[in-house]
């Protein structure tokens, strides 16, 4: 029943091997840039959600709901196909024709916004998981609110947030694969291009899978190192 002749050599035959490597490099760049932006934005938005000032809270809540409740692929299509058409014609023409790597930057924008809403959610729940009496304990020794956050709440919340943020970071790298749909030449795109040239779909897809598994492993290792450096004896953080 399994009538399929494997031919693994297509993965390292030129030019396909170089394609793969180029794809992997693009995936890493895409994921890394998007993650840095998403983390920064997410921390800002997540903090806004717990400020005492109501307009800020409402804005931040609307932001998270909006970007979380629309599929990433739809958001990418919107940024790529629809959004430039709102802009004046000459800018639209510049984006599509002149800007090098327009697709790449569209994905960075879409992926960062989408991920930042999820990071914000983790930041909020991490901050809120700290019991009220812990704030009170700090305040009762004469700390100001700012000092309480600076010395007590934030250092604790960071430790609580690392495991869920690791998961989000992995999700970013996996989600970079969606970039192929708007023509970014990343790992998944390259694997399917190799398939188109060689009809070796399973081999090419397997090679891409391996690449993602290695990236996943590296992210887990790096985040694990950070977690270990910050770990506190006896403090049990949430299970992943």
């Amino acid at each position: 029943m399994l009538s399929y002749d494997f031919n693994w050599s297509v993965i390292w035959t030129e030019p396909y091997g170089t394609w793969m490597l180029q794809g992997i490099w693009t995936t890493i760049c895409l994921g890394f840039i998007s993650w840095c932006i998403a983390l920064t934005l997410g921390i800002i938005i997540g903090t806004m959600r717990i400020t005492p000032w109501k307009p800020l809270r409402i804005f931040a809540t609307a932001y998270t709901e909006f970007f979380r409740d629309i599929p990433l692929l739809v958001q990418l299509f919107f940024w790529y196909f629809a959004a430039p058409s709102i802009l004046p014609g000459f800018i639209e023409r510049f984006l599509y024709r002149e800007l090098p790597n327009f697709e790449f930057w569209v994905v960075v924008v879409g992926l960062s916004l989408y991920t930042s809403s999820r990071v914000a959610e983790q930041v909020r729940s991490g901050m809120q998981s700290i019991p009220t009496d812990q704030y009170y304990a700090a305040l009762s020794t004469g700390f100001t609110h700012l000092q309480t956050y600076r010395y007590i709440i934030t250092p604790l919340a960071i430790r609580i947030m690392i495991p869920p943020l690791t998961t989000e970071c992995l999700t970013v790298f996996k989600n970079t694969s969606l970039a192929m749909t708007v023509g970014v030449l990343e790992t998944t795109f390259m694997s399917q291009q190799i398939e188109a040239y060689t009809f070796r779909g399973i081999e090419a897809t397997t090679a891409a899978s391996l690449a993602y598994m290695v990236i996943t492993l590296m992210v887990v290792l790096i985040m694990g190192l950070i977690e270990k450096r910050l770990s506190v004896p006896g403090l049990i953080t949430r299970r992943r």
Partner: protein
Amino acid sequence: MGAFDWTVIIKNMPFFMKGLLTTFELAVVAISGGLFFGMLVGMARLSHIKLIYYLATIFVNFFRSLPLLLVIFWFYFLVPIIAGRPLGDFVSASVAFVVFEAAYFAEIVRAGIQSISKGQEQAAYSTGFTYAQTMRYIILPQAMRNMVPSLITQTVVVFQDTSLAYVIGLKEFLRSASIVDAREMKSLEIYAFVGLVYFIFCFLMSRFSQKLEAKRGAAK
């Protein structure tokens, strides 16, 4: 650029609805199948039998380290080979989603079971229950209640995920929209509409989940 032309949405409504229906069909298959296999794998992840534990753990970690898009391609190439003949986009997408989402549902189920204290299990065994009875009557009903919010959240995720079936040409909601777009050249209206539809469904579901959680928090 010109004014917005929403007539393009109304004109193509039947075509959109057909796509949306496919999206729902795929979501139902993915959620029910994913949940069913996820339960089995989740329990296997807590098995005392080493072999079962390792197989389940490898399964979960393997699929969780891959992008869904790749898994969809995988089964797109693999299903016809296993079946010996082409079975169509919907079948291969369904298989990919069930297998992929099972890995995620399994982790929810495992966490849910682990949220029940060891004492409950021991209490059940002490009254003479077997493993299966303990699971069936004591642990799973309690675990299920703890899992509901995560399950709903995952349901929303799966619903959004179905849009990825676009890549193998399955005419679900997003693919239908892009077909209309190619014909009508009204990207702004069409993708705003698609986003809105997804948003309404997902927003309502996540609100529902928050309500449940708040209700449970109050009951504690």
